[in-house]
């Protein structure tokens, strides 16, 4: 039975020796050393964002990547989204390279960069939320009847309080984030990549968010990759990865707790402490 189950597990996301260097900033006007990047984009002598990161996520799994600020979480999401080329290694989604073969998987992926909401955004400011959602669903080829059905279904769970006909510009930051999550629910992709998805959400909305995520994986077998520095998010995850430029730990939440029983005595301490720093030291 176990063998059959293992064979049925489908690897949806697979990162292998993923490394990314960012170039150094020019120090002065005639800083010719930085020009090397324009000639050879694989030039490795800059700021390391990711180093030899390898992991995999199976179909229908929720994988949470936890790490401090500057750990390379957003870099990883950008590579997965097809917005950034790794210096070496690869990240494959549904068997295709996430950057080089992005066009083959674009219809199956949806990405939310919560920290970038406002800076770059698919939603248009002076258009109603409803029209924006309709436009985005069209962009991901969602039929109109499916759009209406899924929108009505999600609105029963999340009360937007009449914000649907409002201009997107007039929404609070938290509401903007909720609207993004609604978009993800309507599109219903095979792979959902969420960068800091709960950063502006109230505790109540955070719980609603967890419900939506769980529903997506249980009913639609959506594979979800969440990156966060909020350790609370791991409670809905099947797999946890601790990242700080390199992978410090990967396994289930139970593995993490078992491994660091001494450090993680109870849930309160778990959510409070600077766990990642401690684990980082303990695994060196």
């Amino acid at each position, binding site marked *: 039975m176990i063998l059959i189950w293992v064979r049925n597990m489908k690897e949806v996301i697979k990162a292998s020796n993923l490394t990314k260097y960012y170039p150094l900033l020019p120090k002065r006007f005639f800083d010719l050393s930085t020009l090397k990047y324009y000639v050879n984009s694989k030039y490795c002598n800059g700021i390391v964002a990711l180093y030899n990161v390898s992991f995999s996520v199976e179909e229908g799994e929720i994988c949470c990547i936890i790490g401090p600020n500057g750990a390379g979480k957003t870099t990883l999401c*950008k590579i997965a989204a097809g917005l950034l080329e790794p210096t070496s290694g690869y990240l494959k989604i549904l068997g295709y390279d996430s950057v080089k073969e992005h066009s083959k998987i674009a219809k199956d*992926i949806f990405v939310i960069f919560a920290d970038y909401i406002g800076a770059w955004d698919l939603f248009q400011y002076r258009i109603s939320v409803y029209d924006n959602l309709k436009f985005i669903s069209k962009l991901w080829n969602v039929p109109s009847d499916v759009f209406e059905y899924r929108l009505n279904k999600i609105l029963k769970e999340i009360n937007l309080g009449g914000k649907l006909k409002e201009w997107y510009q007039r929404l609070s930051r938290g509401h903007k984030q909720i609207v993004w999550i609604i978009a993800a629910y309507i599109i219903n992709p095979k792979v959902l990549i969420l960068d800091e998805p709960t950063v502006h959400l109230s505790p109540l909305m955070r719980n609603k968010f967890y419900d939506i995520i769980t529903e997506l994986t249980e009913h639609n077998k959506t594979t979800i990759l969440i990156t966060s520095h909020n350790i609370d998010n791991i409670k809905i995850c099947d797999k946890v990865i601790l990242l700080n430029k390199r992978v410090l730990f990967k396994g289930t939440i139970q593995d993490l707790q078992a491994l660091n029983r001494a450090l993680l005595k109870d849930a309160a301490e778990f959510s409070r402490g600077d766990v990642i720093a401690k684990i980082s030291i303990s695994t060196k």
Partner: protein
Amino acid sequence: MPRFRFLLSSRIYNELSLIKEFMKIGLQQALSYRFDITLQIIYVLFQVAFILIFTRVVSVKLGKFSELTYFEYLASGYIFHNLLFLPRGGLLAFIRSRSFPMLFISPHRLSILILGFNSFRILWSLFIISIMFTVFTIIGGLNIPVLSLQFFVLMLVSFITAIALDLFASGFRLATKSRHDPLNLFIDLSSQLLSGLYFPVEYLPTPLKEISLIHPERYILTCARMLLTKTAFTGIYWQVISTTSLVSLIFLIIGYLVFKWGLKISLSLGTIDHY
């Protein structure tokens, strides 16, 4: 459009309906800036009035276009100058927009996204040009043979040039994040002086005349003026337009290569979403 759905493949149908959605969004957004739209129309009408009055009070030596009036010379140049410049910046606007990173990773071809993003803008530009054209035709008596192959080819070449320059600007912008690029800066700065918009280039001092040879607008405006003379329907016109097409094609190849280079650099540097 659903009526004709059976004629189209599902991919083309999806792309067309996406462009329609883009247009709807563009219209809604434009209507939310009603004051700006009104001002733009007023601005165009003022410019048209200026040309109508200005060309009646000055006399200019027109060289090889001496059979034209100065109004015909300037109005035809002005229409094609706008035809070349109004659609320009569409691709650059797409690259610089907040939506670009997310649209870039959406499941549609980049060309369709660019077309969709600029669909309303293109229609609006054509509307503005048609206002100019109508006023110049009705009040000024301008007679451009719009229903001719010559006019159609010239329109096509103008659009290709505009796209080429835009590709270059966007590629340069993607790679360097610079607000200006050398090619478009040169063309914009020298447009009034070297393109022959206000006066024939043959009256320029020799060094400037030589530089004007690389200005693509010069060739387009020459063809536009030829349309108003009998030469448009002779072999000379096709000789000039083939030179114009060659210049546009060279610009298009350079623009495409620069765009590809810019995209590659921004993907490797992680600056695709940087302002």
